Protein backbone atom coordinates (compact mmCIF):
# COMPACT_ATOMS: atom_id res chain seq x y z
CA UNK A 1 0.00 0.00 0.00
CA UNK A 2 1.03 3.54 -0.73
CA UNK A 3 2.56 4.89 2.47
CA UNK A 4 0.86 8.31 2.29
CA UNK A 5 -2.52 6.61 1.99
CA UNK A 6 -1.63 4.39 4.97
CA UNK A 7 -0.65 7.41 7.01
CA UNK A 8 -3.95 9.09 6.19
CA UNK A 9 -5.83 5.97 7.20
CA UNK A 10 -3.97 5.89 10.53
CA UNK A 11 -4.67 9.56 11.12
CA UNK A 12 -8.39 9.09 10.48
CA UNK A 13 -8.47 6.23 12.98
CA UNK A 14 -6.89 8.55 15.55
CA UNK A 15 -9.40 11.29 14.79
CA UNK A 16 -12.33 8.92 15.29
CA UNK A 17 -10.73 7.72 18.54
CA UNK A 18 -10.36 11.30 19.75
CA UNK A 19 -14.03 12.04 19.12
CA UNK A 20 -15.02 8.85 20.93
CA UNK A 21 -12.86 9.86 23.92
CA UNK A 22 -14.81 13.08 24.30
CA UNK A 23 -18.13 11.25 23.92
CA UNK A 24 -16.99 8.68 26.50
CA UNK A 25 -16.59 11.36 29.15
CA UNK A 26 -19.80 13.09 28.11
CA UNK A 27 -21.75 9.84 28.52
CA UNK A 28 -20.10 9.11 31.82
CA UNK A 29 -21.84 12.22 33.16
CA UNK A 30 -24.98 10.35 34.18
CA UNK A 31 -25.45 6.84 35.60
CA UNK A 32 -28.02 6.14 32.88
CA UNK A 33 -25.57 6.53 29.97
CA UNK A 34 -22.31 5.83 31.81
CA UNK A 35 -21.76 2.30 30.52
CA UNK A 36 -22.15 3.56 26.96
CA UNK A 37 -19.27 5.88 27.79
CA UNK A 38 -17.07 2.93 28.71
CA UNK A 39 -18.01 1.21 25.44
CA UNK A 40 -17.11 4.33 23.46
CA UNK A 41 -13.76 4.47 25.23
CA UNK A 42 -13.10 0.80 24.54
CA UNK A 43 -13.91 1.16 20.83
CA UNK A 44 -11.65 4.22 20.66
CA UNK A 45 -8.80 2.40 22.36
CA UNK A 46 -9.18 -0.69 20.16
CA UNK A 47 -9.27 1.48 17.04
CA UNK A 48 -6.18 3.46 18.03
CA UNK A 49 -4.19 0.39 19.07
CA UNK A 50 -5.30 -1.55 15.98
CA UNK A 51 -4.33 1.30 13.66
CA UNK A 52 -0.96 1.68 15.37
CA UNK A 53 -0.21 -2.01 14.91
CA UNK A 54 -0.63 -1.46 11.16
CA UNK A 55 1.92 1.34 11.16
CA UNK A 56 4.53 0.55 8.46
CA UNK A 57 7.29 1.95 10.69
CA UNK A 58 7.05 -1.13 12.89
CA UNK A 59 9.70 -3.69 11.97
CA UNK A 60 9.53 -6.13 14.85
CA UNK A 61 6.35 -7.34 16.54
CA UNK A 62 7.84 -9.86 18.93
CA UNK A 63 8.27 -7.55 21.92
CA UNK A 64 5.05 -5.70 21.20
CA UNK A 65 3.04 -8.91 21.38
CA UNK A 66 4.87 -10.16 24.48
CA UNK A 67 4.44 -6.89 26.38
CA UNK A 68 0.80 -6.49 25.34
CA UNK A 69 0.17 -9.94 26.82
CA UNK A 70 2.09 -9.00 29.99
CA UNK A 71 0.15 -5.74 30.22
CA UNK A 72 -3.16 -7.54 29.95
CA UNK A 73 -1.91 -10.04 32.52
CA UNK A 74 -1.26 -7.23 34.98
CA UNK A 75 -4.31 -5.17 34.07
CA UNK A 76 -6.99 -7.84 34.43
CA UNK A 77 -6.20 -8.78 38.06
CA UNK A 78 -5.89 -5.08 38.88
CA UNK A 79 -9.33 -4.60 37.39
CA UNK A 80 -10.76 -7.26 39.68
CA UNK A 81 -9.71 -5.82 43.05
CA UNK A 82 -12.19 -5.34 45.85
CA UNK A 83 -13.99 -1.99 45.88
CA UNK A 84 -12.27 -0.92 49.11
CA UNK A 85 -8.95 -1.32 47.23
CA UNK A 86 -9.95 0.91 44.31
CA UNK A 87 -8.04 3.96 45.63
CA UNK A 88 -4.72 2.12 45.72
CA UNK A 89 -5.39 0.54 42.34
CA UNK A 90 -6.06 4.01 40.98
CA UNK A 91 -2.85 5.38 42.50
CA UNK A 92 -0.96 2.44 40.99
CA UNK A 93 -2.47 3.13 37.58
CA UNK A 94 -1.38 6.78 37.84
CA UNK A 95 2.10 5.39 38.51
CA UNK A 96 1.98 3.09 35.47
CA UNK A 97 0.64 5.83 33.21
CA UNK A 98 3.30 8.27 34.33
CA UNK A 99 5.99 5.59 34.05
CA UNK A 100 5.17 4.84 30.45
CA UNK A 101 5.00 8.54 29.55
CA UNK A 102 8.39 9.13 31.18
CA UNK A 103 10.00 6.07 29.56
CA UNK A 104 8.77 7.04 26.11
CA UNK A 105 10.16 10.54 26.62
CA UNK A 106 13.51 9.10 27.72
CA UNK A 107 13.62 6.71 24.74
CA UNK A 108 12.74 9.57 22.39
CA UNK A 109 15.57 11.64 23.86
CA UNK A 110 18.21 8.94 23.41
CA UNK A 111 17.07 8.08 19.90
CA UNK A 112 17.46 11.68 18.83
CA UNK A 113 20.29 12.64 21.14
CA UNK A 114 22.92 14.53 19.24
CA UNK A 115 20.20 16.16 17.13
CA UNK A 116 17.63 17.15 19.78
CA UNK A 117 16.68 20.81 19.26
CA UNK A 118 16.63 23.19 22.20
CA UNK A 119 12.89 23.48 21.95
CA UNK A 120 12.50 19.72 21.73
CA UNK A 121 14.76 19.37 24.76
CA UNK A 122 12.56 21.71 26.80
CA UNK A 123 9.46 19.70 25.86
CA UNK A 124 11.10 16.34 26.62
CA UNK A 125 12.66 17.68 29.82
CA UNK A 126 9.38 18.96 31.20
CA UNK A 127 7.55 15.82 30.15
CA UNK A 128 10.11 13.49 31.71
CA UNK A 129 10.27 15.51 34.95
CA UNK A 130 6.49 15.47 35.42
CA UNK A 131 6.24 11.81 34.41
CA UNK A 132 9.02 10.76 36.77
CA UNK A 133 7.79 12.65 39.83
CA UNK A 134 4.26 11.38 39.22
CA UNK A 135 5.58 7.83 38.98
CA UNK A 136 7.31 7.80 42.38
CA UNK A 137 4.69 10.06 44.00
CA UNK A 138 1.91 7.71 42.93
CA UNK A 139 3.82 4.67 44.16
CA UNK A 140 4.13 6.31 47.58
CA UNK A 141 0.43 7.19 47.54
CA UNK A 142 -0.47 3.61 46.61
CA UNK A 143 1.78 2.33 49.41
CA UNK A 144 0.07 4.60 51.93
CA UNK A 145 -3.39 3.57 50.78
CA UNK A 146 -2.44 -0.11 50.86
CA UNK A 147 -1.05 0.57 54.36
CA UNK A 148 2.39 -0.75 53.44
CA UNK A 149 3.68 2.72 54.30
CA UNK A 150 2.62 4.77 57.34
CA UNK A 151 -0.56 6.69 56.57
CA UNK A 152 0.11 9.57 58.90
CA UNK A 153 1.94 12.45 57.27
CA UNK A 154 5.71 12.15 57.73
CA UNK A 155 7.15 15.57 58.39
CA UNK A 156 10.45 17.05 59.50
CA UNK A 157 11.79 20.52 59.98
CA UNK A 158 12.68 22.43 56.84
CA UNK A 159 10.84 19.88 54.71
CA UNK A 160 9.32 22.32 52.27
CA UNK A 161 12.70 23.94 51.69
CA UNK A 162 14.35 20.57 50.98
CA UNK A 163 11.53 19.45 48.65
CA UNK A 164 11.48 22.69 46.69
CA UNK A 165 15.28 22.69 46.35
CA UNK A 166 15.12 19.19 44.88
CA UNK A 167 12.47 20.29 42.37
CA UNK A 168 14.58 23.36 41.64
CA UNK A 169 17.59 21.13 40.97
CA UNK A 170 15.64 19.04 38.42
CA UNK A 171 14.48 22.17 36.62
CA UNK A 172 17.98 23.65 36.73
CA UNK A 173 19.44 20.54 35.07
CA UNK A 174 16.75 20.77 32.43
CA UNK A 175 17.64 24.40 31.74
CA UNK A 176 21.34 23.48 31.47
CA UNK A 177 20.39 20.79 28.96
CA UNK A 178 18.38 23.28 26.93
CA UNK A 179 21.24 25.77 26.89
CA UNK A 180 23.98 23.17 26.37
CA UNK A 181 22.40 20.21 24.56
CA UNK A 182 25.86 18.57 24.39
CA UNK A 183 25.81 17.86 28.17
CA UNK A 184 23.64 14.81 27.55
CA UNK A 185 25.31 12.94 30.44
CA UNK A 186 23.26 15.19 32.77
CA UNK A 187 19.98 13.75 31.50
CA UNK A 188 19.93 10.71 33.85
CA UNK A 189 20.61 13.05 36.79
CA UNK A 190 17.54 15.10 35.85
CA UNK A 191 15.43 11.93 35.81
CA UNK A 192 16.88 10.77 39.13
CA UNK A 193 16.28 14.07 40.90
CA UNK A 194 12.69 14.20 39.58
CA UNK A 195 12.10 10.66 40.90
CA UNK A 196 13.36 11.74 44.33
CA UNK A 197 11.10 14.80 44.27
CA UNK A 198 8.04 12.60 43.69
CA UNK A 199 8.83 10.74 46.92
CA UNK A 200 9.37 13.97 48.86
CA UNK A 201 6.17 15.46 47.45
CA UNK A 202 3.79 12.76 48.68
CA UNK A 203 5.50 11.46 51.85
CA UNK A 204 4.38 14.41 54.03
CA UNK A 205 0.75 14.10 52.91
CA UNK A 206 -1.60 11.54 54.35
CA UNK A 207 -4.78 10.71 56.19
CA UNK A 208 -7.75 12.78 55.14
CA UNK A 209 -5.80 14.45 52.33
CA UNK A 210 -5.50 11.28 50.27
CA UNK A 211 -8.52 12.10 48.04
CA UNK A 212 -6.86 15.39 47.08
CA UNK A 213 -3.45 13.83 46.50
CA UNK A 214 -4.84 11.08 44.32
CA UNK A 215 -6.72 13.67 42.23
CA UNK A 216 -3.61 15.82 41.87
CA UNK A 217 -1.54 12.83 40.78
CA UNK A 218 -4.29 12.02 38.28
CA UNK A 219 -3.93 15.49 36.91
CA UNK A 220 -0.12 15.22 36.67
CA UNK A 221 -0.36 11.84 34.94
CA UNK A 222 -2.74 13.38 32.42
CA UNK A 223 -0.54 16.39 31.77
CA UNK A 224 2.54 14.21 31.32
CA UNK A 225 0.67 12.29 28.61
CA UNK A 226 -0.40 15.56 26.98
CA UNK A 227 3.20 16.81 27.02
CA UNK A 228 4.27 13.54 25.46
CA UNK A 229 1.77 14.34 22.72
CA UNK A 230 3.67 17.61 22.19
CA UNK A 231 7.01 15.76 22.04
CA UNK A 232 5.76 13.19 19.54
CA UNK A 233 3.43 15.61 17.76
CA UNK A 234 0.48 13.29 18.39
CA UNK A 235 -2.89 15.02 18.70
CA UNK A 236 -4.64 11.98 20.11
CA UNK A 237 -2.22 11.99 23.06
CA UNK A 238 -2.64 15.73 23.53
CA UNK A 239 -6.43 15.36 23.71
CA UNK A 240 -6.46 12.28 25.96
CA UNK A 241 -3.89 13.87 28.25
CA UNK A 242 -5.77 17.17 28.39
CA UNK A 243 -9.02 15.38 29.28
CA UNK A 244 -7.35 13.30 31.99
CA UNK A 245 -5.39 16.27 33.28
CA UNK A 246 -8.42 18.56 33.50
CA UNK A 247 -10.44 15.79 35.14
CA UNK A 248 -7.83 15.35 37.86
CA UNK A 249 -7.56 19.09 38.25
CA UNK A 250 -11.31 19.60 38.72
CA UNK A 251 -11.52 16.73 41.19
CA UNK A 252 -8.62 18.24 43.18
CA UNK A 253 -10.44 21.57 43.30
CA UNK A 254 -13.64 19.84 44.47
CA UNK A 255 -11.72 17.95 47.16
CA UNK A 256 -9.93 21.09 48.36
CA UNK A 257 -13.23 22.98 48.58
CA UNK A 258 -14.82 20.11 50.49
CA UNK A 259 -12.08 20.43 53.09
CA UNK A 260 -11.93 24.23 52.95
CA UNK A 261 -8.25 24.15 52.15
CA UNK A 262 -6.12 25.62 49.42
CA UNK A 263 -3.84 23.68 47.09
CA UNK A 264 -0.84 25.22 48.77
CA UNK A 265 -2.10 24.12 52.15
CA UNK A 266 -2.54 20.52 51.01
CA UNK A 267 0.84 20.40 49.33
CA UNK A 268 2.83 22.16 52.00
CA UNK A 269 0.61 22.09 55.08
CA UNK A 270 0.94 18.51 56.41
CA UNK A 271 -2.47 18.30 58.05
CA UNK A 272 -3.03 16.23 61.16
CA UNK A 273 0.35 16.84 62.70
CA UNK A 274 -0.14 20.37 63.97
CA UNK A 275 -3.69 19.78 65.14
CA UNK A 276 -2.80 17.00 67.52
CA UNK A 277 -1.17 19.71 69.57
CA UNK A 278 -4.17 22.00 69.11
CA UNK A 279 -6.43 19.38 70.67
CA UNK A 280 -5.18 20.15 74.17
CA UNK A 281 -6.37 18.49 77.34
CA UNK A 282 -9.97 17.45 76.70
CA UNK A 283 -12.08 17.48 79.84
CA UNK A 284 -14.50 14.64 80.39
CA UNK A 285 -17.94 15.71 79.27
CA UNK A 286 -21.06 13.61 79.69
CA UNK A 287 -22.46 11.83 76.65
CA UNK A 288 -25.65 9.82 76.32
CA UNK A 289 -25.18 6.30 75.08
CA UNK A 290 -27.75 3.76 73.95
CA UNK A 291 -28.03 0.01 73.45
CA UNK A 292 -28.87 -1.66 70.11
CA UNK A 293 -32.35 -2.28 71.50
CA UNK A 294 -32.97 1.41 72.16
CA UNK A 295 -31.46 2.38 68.80
CA UNK A 296 -33.71 -0.11 67.01
CA UNK A 297 -36.73 1.33 68.83
CA UNK A 298 -35.91 4.87 67.74
CA UNK A 299 -35.32 3.80 64.13
CA UNK A 300 -38.57 1.83 64.03
CA UNK A 301 -40.51 4.88 65.26
CA UNK A 302 -38.99 7.21 62.67
CA UNK A 303 -40.54 8.10 59.34
CA UNK A 304 -37.41 9.56 57.73
CA UNK A 305 -33.86 8.39 58.38
CA UNK A 306 -30.65 9.76 56.89
CA UNK A 307 -27.63 7.48 57.11
CA UNK A 308 -24.24 9.22 57.03
CA UNK A 309 -21.49 6.74 56.19
CA UNK A 310 -17.80 7.50 56.56
CA UNK A 311 -14.66 5.60 55.79
CA UNK A 312 -14.93 3.88 59.19
CA UNK A 313 -17.91 2.02 57.77
CA UNK A 314 -15.85 0.68 54.89
CA UNK A 315 -12.94 -0.24 57.17
CA UNK A 316 -15.33 -2.29 59.29
CA UNK A 317 -16.73 -3.86 56.07
CA UNK A 318 -20.17 -2.85 57.31
CA UNK A 319 -21.69 -1.77 53.99
CA UNK A 320 -23.61 -5.01 53.50
CA UNK A 321 -25.04 -4.78 57.02
CA UNK A 322 -26.00 -1.19 56.25
CA UNK A 323 -27.82 -2.44 53.16
CA UNK A 324 -29.76 -4.90 55.37
CA UNK A 325 -30.82 -2.14 57.73
CA UNK A 326 -31.82 -0.07 54.68
CA UNK A 327 -33.95 -2.95 53.40
CA UNK A 328 -35.66 -3.58 56.75
CA UNK A 329 -36.48 0.09 57.34
CA UNK A 330 -37.64 0.63 53.75
CA UNK A 331 -39.94 -2.38 54.00
CA UNK A 332 -41.53 -0.80 57.06
CA UNK A 333 -42.33 2.26 54.97
CA UNK A 334 -39.56 4.38 56.45
CA UNK A 335 -37.87 6.77 54.03
CA UNK A 336 -34.12 6.06 54.13
CA UNK A 337 -31.54 8.18 52.35
CA UNK A 338 -27.77 8.42 52.47
CA UNK A 339 -25.86 11.66 52.90
CA UNK A 340 -22.41 11.51 51.33
CA UNK A 341 -19.68 14.04 51.98
CA UNK A 342 -17.29 14.61 49.04
CA UNK A 343 -14.32 13.42 51.10
CA UNK A 344 -16.04 10.37 52.64
CA UNK A 345 -13.76 7.56 51.52
CA UNK A 346 -10.23 7.52 50.16
CA UNK A 347 -10.80 8.99 46.74
CA UNK A 348 -13.45 11.15 45.07
CA UNK A 349 -16.75 9.26 44.85
CA UNK A 350 -15.38 6.22 46.69
CA UNK A 351 -18.26 5.99 49.20
CA UNK A 352 -20.84 5.88 46.40
CA UNK A 353 -19.07 2.94 44.82
CA UNK A 354 -18.89 1.10 48.14
CA UNK A 355 -22.62 1.58 48.75
CA UNK A 356 -23.54 0.75 45.16
CA UNK A 357 -21.58 -2.46 45.54
CA UNK A 358 -23.75 -3.30 48.54
CA UNK A 359 -26.78 -2.94 46.20
CA UNK A 360 -28.06 0.33 47.62
CA UNK A 361 -29.91 2.14 44.81
CA UNK A 362 -27.94 5.16 43.64
CA UNK A 363 -30.97 7.46 43.70
CA UNK A 364 -30.82 7.15 47.51
CA UNK A 365 -27.22 8.40 47.59
CA UNK A 366 -27.36 12.16 47.92
CA UNK A 367 -24.38 14.47 47.92
CA UNK A 368 -23.80 17.10 50.58
CA UNK A 369 -25.69 19.96 48.91
CA UNK A 370 -28.73 17.78 48.22
CA UNK A 371 -28.98 16.19 51.65
CA UNK A 372 -28.29 19.21 53.83
CA UNK A 373 -31.74 20.64 53.10
CA UNK A 374 -33.31 17.41 54.36
CA UNK A 375 -31.76 17.06 57.81
CA UNK A 376 -34.25 19.43 59.56
CA UNK A 377 -37.08 17.14 58.41
CA UNK A 378 -35.27 13.93 59.31
CA UNK A 379 -36.30 12.05 62.45
CA UNK A 380 -33.00 10.26 62.78
CA UNK A 381 -29.52 10.89 61.42
CA UNK A 382 -27.49 7.71 61.80
CA UNK A 383 -23.75 8.40 61.54
CA UNK A 384 -21.63 5.32 60.82
CA UNK A 385 -17.87 5.73 60.88
CA UNK A 386 -17.83 9.43 59.98
CA UNK A 387 -16.49 12.11 62.32
CA UNK A 388 -14.93 15.35 61.10
CA UNK A 389 -17.42 15.81 58.25
CA UNK A 390 -20.26 15.99 60.82
CA UNK A 391 -18.50 18.34 63.25
CA UNK A 392 -20.68 21.43 63.85
CA UNK A 393 -17.60 23.29 65.11
CA UNK A 394 -16.76 23.78 61.41
CA UNK A 395 -19.76 26.14 61.22
CA UNK A 396 -19.38 28.08 64.44
CA UNK A 397 -15.99 27.90 66.11
CA UNK A 398 -13.63 30.26 64.35
CA UNK A 399 -10.72 28.86 66.35
CA UNK A 400 -11.31 25.29 65.14
CA UNK A 401 -8.78 23.94 62.62
CA UNK A 402 -11.68 22.76 60.48
CA UNK A 403 -13.61 26.05 60.69
CA UNK A 404 -15.25 26.82 57.36
CA UNK A 405 -15.14 23.25 56.07
CA UNK A 406 -18.54 22.36 54.57
CA UNK A 407 -20.15 19.67 56.72
CA UNK A 408 -23.22 17.46 56.73
CA UNK A 409 -25.73 19.15 59.05
CA UNK A 410 -26.60 16.00 60.99
CA UNK A 411 -27.11 18.05 64.17
CA UNK A 412 -30.28 19.50 62.59
CA UNK A 413 -32.03 16.12 62.63
CA UNK A 414 -34.43 15.42 65.50
CA UNK A 415 -32.27 12.63 66.90
CA UNK A 416 -28.66 11.88 66.06
CA UNK A 417 -27.18 8.44 66.56
CA UNK A 418 -23.46 7.92 66.15
CA UNK A 419 -21.91 4.47 65.89
CA UNK A 420 -18.34 4.80 67.07
CA UNK A 421 -15.75 2.57 68.70
CA UNK A 422 -14.76 5.09 71.35
CA UNK A 423 -14.57 8.84 71.93
CA UNK A 424 -11.25 9.01 70.02
CA UNK A 425 -10.82 11.97 67.67
CA UNK A 426 -10.98 11.72 63.86
CA UNK A 427 -8.33 12.45 61.23
CA UNK A 428 -8.14 16.12 62.14
CA UNK A 429 -7.48 15.17 65.77
CA UNK A 430 -10.15 17.44 67.20
CA UNK A 431 -13.12 16.95 69.48
CA UNK A 432 -16.62 16.80 67.99
CA UNK A 433 -19.25 18.85 69.94
CA UNK A 434 -21.95 16.87 68.12
CA UNK A 435 -21.40 14.02 70.58
CA UNK A 436 -22.36 16.12 73.62
CA UNK A 437 -25.69 17.41 72.31
CA UNK A 438 -28.84 16.38 74.19
CA UNK A 439 -30.30 14.93 71.02
CA UNK A 440 -27.25 12.76 70.34
CA UNK A 441 -27.04 9.12 71.33
CA UNK A 442 -23.65 7.43 71.16
CA UNK A 443 -23.75 3.81 70.06
CA UNK A 444 -20.40 2.45 71.18
CA UNK A 445 -19.12 -0.53 69.25
CA UNK A 446 -17.76 -1.86 66.00
CA UNK A 447 -19.82 -0.57 63.05
CA UNK A 448 -20.53 -4.00 61.59
CA UNK A 449 -21.32 -5.60 64.95
CA UNK A 450 -23.54 -2.76 66.13
CA UNK A 451 -25.51 -2.51 62.92
CA UNK A 452 -25.90 -6.30 63.05
CA UNK A 453 -27.33 -6.05 66.58
CA UNK A 454 -29.78 -3.34 65.51
CA UNK A 455 -30.88 -5.56 62.62
CA UNK A 456 -31.45 -8.46 65.03
CA UNK A 457 -33.60 -6.23 67.24
CA UNK A 458 -35.58 -4.89 64.28
CA UNK A 459 -36.24 -8.33 62.83
CA UNK A 460 -37.39 -9.58 66.23
CA UNK A 461 -34.38 -11.55 67.37
CA UNK A 462 -33.84 -13.31 64.01
CA UNK A 463 -30.31 -14.57 63.45
CA UNK A 464 -27.91 -12.81 61.13
CA UNK A 465 -24.30 -13.79 60.58
Amino acid at each position, binding site marked *: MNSIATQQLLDSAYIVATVLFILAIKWL*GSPVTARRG*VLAGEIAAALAVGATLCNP*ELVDYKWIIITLVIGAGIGIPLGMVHMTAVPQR*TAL*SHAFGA*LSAALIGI*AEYYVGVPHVTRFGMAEIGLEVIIGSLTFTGSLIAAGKLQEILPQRPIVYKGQNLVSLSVLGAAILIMIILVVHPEYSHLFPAMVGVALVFGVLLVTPIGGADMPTVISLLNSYAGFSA*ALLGFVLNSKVLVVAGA*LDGSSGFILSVIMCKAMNRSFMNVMFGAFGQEHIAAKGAGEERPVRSATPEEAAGILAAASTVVIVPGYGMAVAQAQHKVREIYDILTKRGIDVKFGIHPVAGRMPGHMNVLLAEADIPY*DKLLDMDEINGEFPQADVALVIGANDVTNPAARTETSSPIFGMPILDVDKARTVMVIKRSMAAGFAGIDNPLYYLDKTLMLFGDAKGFVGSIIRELSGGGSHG
Partner: protein
Amino acid sequence: MPSDFLSNLYVFILAGFVGVELIKRVSPLLHTPLMSLTNALDAIVVVAAIIICGRHETPLSTTLGAIAVAASFSNMVGGFFITDRMLRMFKTGKPKKS
Protein backbone atom coordinates in the same frame (compact mmCIF):
# COMPACT_ATOMS: atom_id res chain seq x y z
CA MET B 1 8.62 28.46 17.97
CA PRO B 2 7.96 25.36 15.82
CA SER B 3 4.58 25.34 14.07
CA ASP B 4 3.89 21.82 15.38
CA PHE B 5 4.08 23.21 18.88
CA LEU B 6 1.52 25.89 18.14
CA SER B 7 -0.98 23.53 16.56
CA ASN B 8 -0.56 21.13 19.50
CA LEU B 9 -1.09 24.02 21.88
CA TYR B 10 -4.37 24.90 20.12
CA VAL B 11 -5.56 21.33 20.45
CA PHE B 12 -4.45 21.16 24.09
CA ILE B 13 -6.25 24.36 25.08
CA LEU B 14 -9.47 23.42 23.27
CA ALA B 15 -9.45 19.87 24.66
CA GLY B 16 -8.77 21.27 28.13
CA PHE B 17 -11.84 23.52 27.92
CA VAL B 18 -14.00 20.68 26.59
CA GLY B 19 -12.71 18.48 29.42
CA VAL B 20 -13.48 21.05 32.11
CA GLU B 21 -17.02 21.62 30.80
CA LEU B 22 -17.80 17.90 30.49
CA ILE B 23 -16.26 16.89 33.79
CA LYS B 24 -18.04 19.62 35.75
CA ARG B 25 -21.28 17.93 34.67
CA VAL B 26 -20.31 14.48 35.90
CA SER B 27 -22.39 13.59 38.96
CA PRO B 28 -20.33 13.29 42.18
CA LEU B 29 -21.88 9.83 42.37
CA LEU B 30 -19.57 8.78 39.55
CA HIS B 31 -16.31 10.48 40.44
CA THR B 32 -14.49 7.21 41.10
CA PRO B 33 -15.51 5.64 37.75
CA LEU B 34 -14.64 8.98 36.13
CA MET B 35 -11.11 8.73 37.43
CA SER B 36 -10.70 5.13 36.34
CA LEU B 37 -12.16 5.86 32.90
CA THR B 38 -9.96 8.89 32.24
CA ASN B 39 -7.07 6.72 33.38
CA ALA B 40 -7.94 4.12 30.79
CA LEU B 41 -8.25 6.82 28.11
CA ASP B 42 -4.92 8.27 29.16
CA ALA B 43 -3.40 4.83 28.59
CA ILE B 44 -3.59 5.71 24.89
CA VAL B 45 0.12 6.49 25.33
CA VAL B 46 0.36 2.78 24.54
CA VAL B 47 0.26 3.75 20.84
CA ALA B 48 3.46 5.76 21.25
CA ALA B 49 5.00 2.95 23.27
CA ILE B 50 4.16 0.42 20.54
CA ILE B 51 5.89 2.56 17.91
CA ILE B 52 9.00 3.13 20.04
CA CYS B 53 9.16 -0.57 20.85
CA GLY B 54 8.48 -1.84 17.32
CA ARG B 55 10.68 0.63 15.41
CA HIS B 56 13.64 -1.19 16.89
CA GLU B 57 16.07 1.74 16.70
CA THR B 58 18.39 1.04 19.62
CA PRO B 59 18.33 -1.72 22.24
CA LEU B 60 17.64 0.98 24.87
CA SER B 61 14.65 2.47 23.06
CA THR B 62 13.20 -0.98 22.39
CA THR B 63 13.56 -1.95 26.05
CA LEU B 64 12.07 1.28 27.38
CA GLY B 65 9.28 1.06 24.80
CA ALA B 66 8.55 -2.54 25.80
CA ILE B 67 8.21 -1.63 29.48
CA ALA B 68 6.01 1.30 28.51
CA VAL B 69 3.76 -0.96 26.40
CA ALA B 70 3.22 -3.30 29.34
CA ALA B 71 2.61 -0.47 31.85
CA SER B 72 0.18 1.49 29.71
CA PHE B 73 -1.64 -1.51 28.27
CA SER B 74 -2.26 -2.81 31.80
CA ASN B 75 -3.88 0.57 32.56
CA MET B 76 -5.99 0.39 29.46
CA VAL B 77 -7.27 -3.13 30.08
CA GLY B 78 -7.60 -2.75 33.86
CA GLY B 79 -9.10 0.74 33.64
CA PHE B 80 -11.94 -0.15 31.28
CA PHE B 81 -12.55 -3.39 33.13
CA ILE B 82 -12.88 -1.89 36.60
CA THR B 83 -14.89 1.11 35.36
CA ASP B 84 -17.45 -1.17 33.80
CA ARG B 85 -17.49 -3.37 36.91
CA MET B 86 -18.22 -0.33 39.08
CA LEU B 87 -20.89 1.06 36.77
CA ARG B 88 -22.72 -2.27 36.70
CA MET B 89 -23.15 -1.89 40.46
CA PHE B 90 -25.05 1.39 40.15
CA LYS B 91 -28.73 0.49 40.07
CA THR B 92 -31.87 2.54 40.63
CA GLY B 93 -34.35 1.63 43.34
CA LYS B 94 -37.17 0.87 40.91
CA PRO B 95 -36.63 -2.77 39.98
CA LYS B 96 -36.20 -3.70 43.65
CA LYS B 97 -34.49 -6.93 44.59
CA SER B 98 -35.92 -8.72 47.62
